């Protein structure tokens, strides 16, 4: 029987480490961070090269359709110097947008997470709130612009409102699901150990829902960034979204891509920061 268990002599101190395939993959797994960095580079570098070759060497992709690296470089130069572009230099644009996003995100998670927890905790609250929530929720941020202008004028308030509306939805939904998916035995365990409802919320509901809450926060943060353009359609004079709007009106693909890259970098950086917070807040997940 080929697969029966048999063994060669099993004594001696010779811990000869064989170099089987398994061990190789195992070692690769251990490399962890290093390997990830390598793979990330492996993904990005060929893509950059491909981009350069297609736009600048073979001209397969006309620069009118997609900017070449040189176009983006030119755009970067233009917006970094003097008056910049669309009302300011890139650093001012990034700063303005980050401020808007952070404020919108803060308000959205501050309202959305408790609301989602409440709806997950109490079926009655859910029944009461859900219908209106479900009706309002599909209305896109863009559609709120006229009302936002009316209610908040053309200042930051209206922009934060638009971002808030988009970012608040995933915060609610995921906190809600987080509570709903909680193992009921854990709540039972808390109850039999004398936990009062507020204690259950604090010690069971919230920590139990935290992984989902963070999923929601990530999506919220993403929604904040993706709504930025819509928000800055409300009479912005500065901001990355504003740069994107103006560049698209100028049909300036190099600048559009450069601004997109910044949006990507800022969004990824903020998500990374959120990930660090998540690790600290959820230490039990190895």
């Amino acid at each position: 029987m080929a697969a029966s268990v048999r063994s060669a002599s099993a004594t001696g101190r010779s811990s000869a480490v064989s170099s089987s395939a398994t061990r190789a993959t195992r070692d690769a797994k251990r490399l962890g961070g290093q390997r990830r960095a390598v793979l990330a580079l492996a993904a990005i570098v060929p893509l950059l090269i491909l981009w350069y070759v297609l736009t600048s060497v073979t001209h397969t992709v006309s620069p009118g359709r997609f900017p070449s690296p040189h176009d983006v470089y030119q755009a970067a130069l233009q917006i970094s110097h003097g008056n910049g572009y669309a009302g300011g230099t890139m650093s001012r644009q990034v700063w303005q947008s980050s401020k808007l996003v952070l404020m919108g995100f803060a308000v959205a998670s501050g309202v959305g997470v408790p609301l989602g927890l409440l709806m997950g905790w109490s079926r009655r609250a859910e029944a009461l709130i859900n219908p209106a929530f479900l009706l309002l929720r599909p209305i896109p941020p863009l559609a709120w612009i006229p009302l936002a202008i009316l209610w908040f004028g053309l200042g930051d308030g209206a922009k934060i409102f638009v971002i808030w509306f988009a970012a608040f939805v995933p915060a609610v939904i995921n906190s809600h699901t987080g509570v709903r998916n909680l193992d009921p035995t854990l709540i039972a365990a808390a109850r039999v150990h004398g936990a009062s409802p507020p204690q259950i919320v604090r010690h069971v509901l919230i920590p139990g829902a935290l992984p989902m809450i963070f999923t929601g926060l990530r999506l919220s943060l993403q929604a904040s960034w993706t709504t930025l353009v819509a928000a800055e359609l409300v009479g912005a004079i500065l901001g990355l979204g504003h740069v994107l709007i103006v560049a698209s009106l100028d049909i300036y693909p190099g600048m559009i891509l450069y601004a997109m890259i910044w949006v990507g970098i800022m969004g990824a950086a903020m998500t990374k920061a959120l990930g660090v917070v998540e690790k600290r807040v959820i230490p039990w997940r190895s």
Partner: protein
Amino acid sequence: EPVHMNVSYQPTNWWALPYVLATKKNWWADVGLQVSYSTFPAGVPQIASAAAGSWDAGGTGSVPAVIGAARYHILTVGITNDESATNVLIATKEAAARFEKNPKEALKGQRILVTANSTGEYAAAACLHKYGLSENDVTMVNLGQAGIMSALTSGTAGFGALWAPNSYTLEDKIGAKIVCTGKDGDAIIPGALVVREDYAKEHPDLVAKYLAVYLHAIKWEKAHPEETVKALQEADKEAGVPISEKYAKVEYQRPIFDLAEQLEIMARHGGKPSKVDVWFDRIAEFMKSKGSLQSVPAASSYITDKYLKMVNDDPKLKAFANDASR
């Protein structure tokens, strides 16, 4: 056997009426064309989709025409109309009252709502200059036309740059006042008949036919004022932005140019720039000053009367273009 052509325009525009009429009255067939339309709410996406080959010829604003020339080899082969008088700086009642007392003071330091990269912005800038102000004396805030209308309606801002028929709607609904037009600011704002350069190279004859239909419509409009006004009202209503007869009549006042007039304003006599060249150069200069363009494209590189001349040289087309009877 009619030849197919993709034509693009922006509905609810005075200069869009010829397309509506041409379809309704089947003028395309008269020159052996069969067209399908792509319509756009604004010039910028219109130009961008030309890059994807979505359309061959059409009409657009002068600002998009310049951008199209600078980036996507879009030729300007004729003029749809002169919209200098209908690109306006409009003010709410209160702001208009202040403006009447002292225009410069009323404007200074104010937020001016403009749609960036539009003829409206160009007109607004011209108006500022007229009152001795520069763009640095005010805050130019970028908003779409609809956004400007909402903001003015709610009183969040006092001044905005609109074009027809949006300006009419605002006058009607909240009693806003036009305080200055592009014309007042001495800015000539033409609309452009445009065509993709590679298409024009391949099918010059079709471009000429396309122009002949548009010119025929202009001739017809000039000859039938009442019917034209009615047709305009109908077209705008169908597109969702109805205007009253009063404003339809105002629209009718906008200058349009028939074949002979077009040839005249586009002619470069003795190597001197044509009138149209001058108009477009000023617009391009303005756009460069705002950073939208890195350099001003030479007018001769994208404005051409070659196709108008082809219409003029073809007896059949010329006769059709100048026929106002039906």
